[in-house]
Structure formats: structure tokens, C-alpha cells
């Protein structure tokens, strides 16, 4: 098991209200998992607690290796003093350089590799940012709306590519698209309002790999299950 959260209780340093109350969750198997829930329910906060960016919570978080957990989000920027290509090359461990070329192709970044980050579109920015995280040594990569502003077709292609290229890694994908998490995620951690108990429940996703036709009826059932759970 990579990660287990037990009885996590947390309130923001400035606020009195609880964000999480006795929250439990775990990531037992590798794969592409989702963290889903309404806006403001604390998805990013939970992700940052898991990544070790936020402390001061009660309860326990067991991690196999804290250094192996990375958290990426869509507000990040690459430094502006070099091109996207130069930056990616510089932050890629030597052993992963061949992977860099594969990801550039798969994520359709070839056309903007010589540009500065500020010259990219929002979608390209998010793809470039995600690429550099995928090139690191990690066990779990938390993708907090990392594919926001990316075209739907490319987004699907990227998720399928990630699943193919990193079958042994853990991913926790935060998205507001029910259809997307229902389609691609193996397990979906449904984070609910603080007043609901339990605050977090697990729903099985369709874990689609893009190589077979999707069972639409099964997908609809999963989506309904997610919506009802929320």
C-alpha cells in the first residue's frame, strides 16, 4: 500500500470551521485514480496534505515514501529565462531523457518547445508543466486539474498515454468532469461535504485504457453512482 490516511481532521489556520473530520482513505494499488467532489470541498487541500505540503492536521498519514509523492497543479509556471525545451531538458534526470522525447511527441509539444513559457497557450502550459513532473522519479503524482484548458481530444490522449507509459505508478487525478473520472479512473475517491459521514467514499471507475470500445451503459451507471455519492 502506498498511502493511507486515517482519521484526518483539519481546519484552515485562519478559520474555525473544519475542512475534514475523521477522514479516511487509501491508495492500495497502482493506477489512474480520481479525487472528485464539489468545488470548495477541500480536494486540493487534501492533495496537499497527502503531498506533505500542509501540516498541522490531526490523524495519521502513512506513506511508503514521502519523497515519492509529487503534487502538480494548473497554476504553476516554468521560469521565463529559458525556452520550454531547455527547461525540460535541464530538469529531466539523465536516465529519463528518452522518455522526454516520447512525452513531447505524445503531448503534442513539439511546436512550442523552442518558445518561452509565457508564449504558450493555457493548454500548452498545462501540458508542459505536467510533462516535467512525469519525468521525475515518483511513486504517486497528484494531478490537480493539471489538464485544465487542454482540448478534450488531447486530454483523453494524454490520460491514455500516461496509463500506458506508467502502469506501475500511482496517479490521483483531480477533475471537475464526472465523465472523465468515471471513464478513466480505476478508483474514485469521492470527497463530500463535511456534514456527510463518511466524508470520503470510494467508487469504482471504468478504468478505460482507450484500446477498446466503451460500454456506454456501464459508464452511465458509474456516473450516476458518482453523482449520487456526491
Amino acid at each position, binding site marked *: 500500500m502506498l498511502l493511507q490516511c486515517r482519521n484526518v481532521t483539519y481546519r484552515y489556520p485562519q478559520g474555525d470551521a473544519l475542512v475534514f473530520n475523521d477522514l479516511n482513505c487509501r491508495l492500495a494499488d497502482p493506477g489512474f485514480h480520481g479525487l472528485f467532489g464539489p468545488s470548495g470541498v477541500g480536494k486540493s487541500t487534501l492533495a496537499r496534505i497527502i*503531498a506533505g505540503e500542509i501540516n498541522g492536521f490531526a490523524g495519521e498519514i502513512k506513506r511508503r515514501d514521502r*519523497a515519492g509523492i*509529487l*503534487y*502538480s*497543479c494548473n*497554476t*504553476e*509556471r*516554468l*521560469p*521565463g*529565462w*529559458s525556452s520550454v525545451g531547455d527547461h525540460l531538458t535541464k*530538469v529531466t534526470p539523465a536516465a529519463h531523457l528518452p522518455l522526454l522525447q516520447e512525452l513531447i511527441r505524445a503531448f503534442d509539444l513539439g511546436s512550442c518547445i523552442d518558445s*518561452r513559457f*509565457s*508564449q504558450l497557450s493555457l493548454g500548452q502550459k498545462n501540458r508542459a*508543466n505536467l510533462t*516535467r*513532473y512525469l519525468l*521525475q522519479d515518483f511513486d504517486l503524482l497528484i494531478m490537480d486539474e493539471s489538464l485544465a484548458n487542454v482540448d478534450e481530444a488531447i486530454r483523453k490522449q494524454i490520460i491514455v498515454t500516461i496509463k500506458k507509459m506508467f502502469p506501475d505508478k500511482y496517479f490521483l487525478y483531480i477533475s471537475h468532469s464526472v465523465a472523465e473520472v468515471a471513464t478513466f479512473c480505476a478508483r474514485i475517491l469521492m470527497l463530500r461535504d463535511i456534514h456527510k459521514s463518511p466524508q470520503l467514499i470510494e467508487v469504482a471507475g471504468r478504468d478505460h485504457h482507450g484500446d477498446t470500445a466503451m460500454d456506454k451503459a456501464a459508464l452511465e451507471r458509474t456516473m450516476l453512482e458518482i453523482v449520487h455519492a456526491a
Partner: protein
Amino acid sequence: MLHKRISQFLIIYFLGLGLLLAIKYCFGLSDYVIPGFTDIKNTAAAVAAGYLRAVLDTLGVAVIGHLLAIALATVVAIVGRPDNLLGTMIKTAAYNLQAYPIVAVAPIIFILLGDGLPSRLLIAAIICYFPLLLSFIGILGEPVASIEHFYVMTGRMRWQLEVKIRAFENMHKLITVVTGSATLAMVGTIVAEFIGADSGIGYSLRIALYQSDMAKVLVALFLIGVFNSLYLVALELLGLVIQKRMGVEQRIQQ
């Protein structure tokens, strides 16, 4: 840029001169109090060469003092950047010291170091140092989370990289602060020369004051204004070159 700076100065200078002459003629003041335009012109012809050398002398000291202040402020801001005990102490000291009119310690410096170059240099440096330090601490102490996050997450963050990110992201502010403090360096040098030095345009101003010769004062002010404008333009051009080389310009244009 040069044209703009010089024009701005000339407009202000001649508006001020016009106001003085208007006061002179409105109240019928004698040439001894406010000299006429011809007197000013004749005085300019007589003292221009000497005053030019004095202004260049002052400018040289101001530039060196300014560079010293920039270097020192950069080092102290880097050291005082983190939120640890040392950083907190440095910030507190800087905020408290800058509240004191530092020019008031100039006589102590003259008593200790004499009326030569070191005193002028030190006073020029300390007068522009604290505003620079406060700005530098503010800029280098403020995390750029959107860029730094990746390096922190992946264990790559080093202090040099942190400083580079913050300086790059705030290059416009840094250049504005450095350019703004250039005038303070010039002010510091002139004040030092005025108080106790034996050379420079501040010293010439002191002599003109003792002689109650406003024409000389006006000529000195003209030269100070022109050369200060030139120094500011040089700094702004240098800032543009740095920004262009680092790619800041492309970022701003987007």
C-alpha cells in the same frame, strides 16, 4: 528616453527659474537677492568649466557609492530573505534604521574619517542603502509559489535558484528601485560635500551660499540636473539591456 528625461528636467528647471524671475520683478527685488537673466548667463560663462569638473567629481562619487549600496543591499537582502531568526533580525533592523534620518549622522562620519573621499562615499552609500535594502528584502523575501513549487517538490531548490527566480520575476521593480535610488546617491553626495567635504559640487554650493550668489547656485543646479538625468538614463538603458538578455521583455509583451 534621454530626450524625455532631459526635457522633463529642462521644463522643471526653467519653470523654477521663471518663477524666481517673476518674484524678482513683481516685488522689485535687487540683483543681489535674485540675479537677472544676464547675470546668470555671465556667471554661467565664468564658472561653467569649474562647476562641470565639480559635478563630474560628485557624480563619480555618487555612482561608486550607489554601486556599493546596491552590492551591500543585495548581500544583506539575500541573507535576510528567509523567515528565520537572522532574517527577522535583519528585517527588523532595516525597518527601524530606515526610519531614522540617516543624513544626521554625517557630521560623525566627517569627524571620524575627515573631509576627503571616504566620507563622501560612505554618506552617499548609506543614504541610498536603506531604501534599496527594504525594497530588495521585500522582493527577494516574497516567494513566487507558481514557479518555486516544482523545485521545492522535486528537491531541487537552492538559494541561488530561489534568488534568481525572485529577481527575474521582479526585474522591473528592481530596476525601478535601483534607478530611483540613484537620485538619492546624488543627494547623499551633495549633502556630504555641502556639510563638510572640500570638493565636489556640494562644496561649490556651500561657497556660493556663503557668498549669497544665487546665480552660481542656479548654474550648479542646472549642471546637477543635467548629469543626474544622464545617470538615470544610463541606468534605465542598462536595465533594458538586462531585461532583454534575460528574456523578461518577451514575457512582458505577452
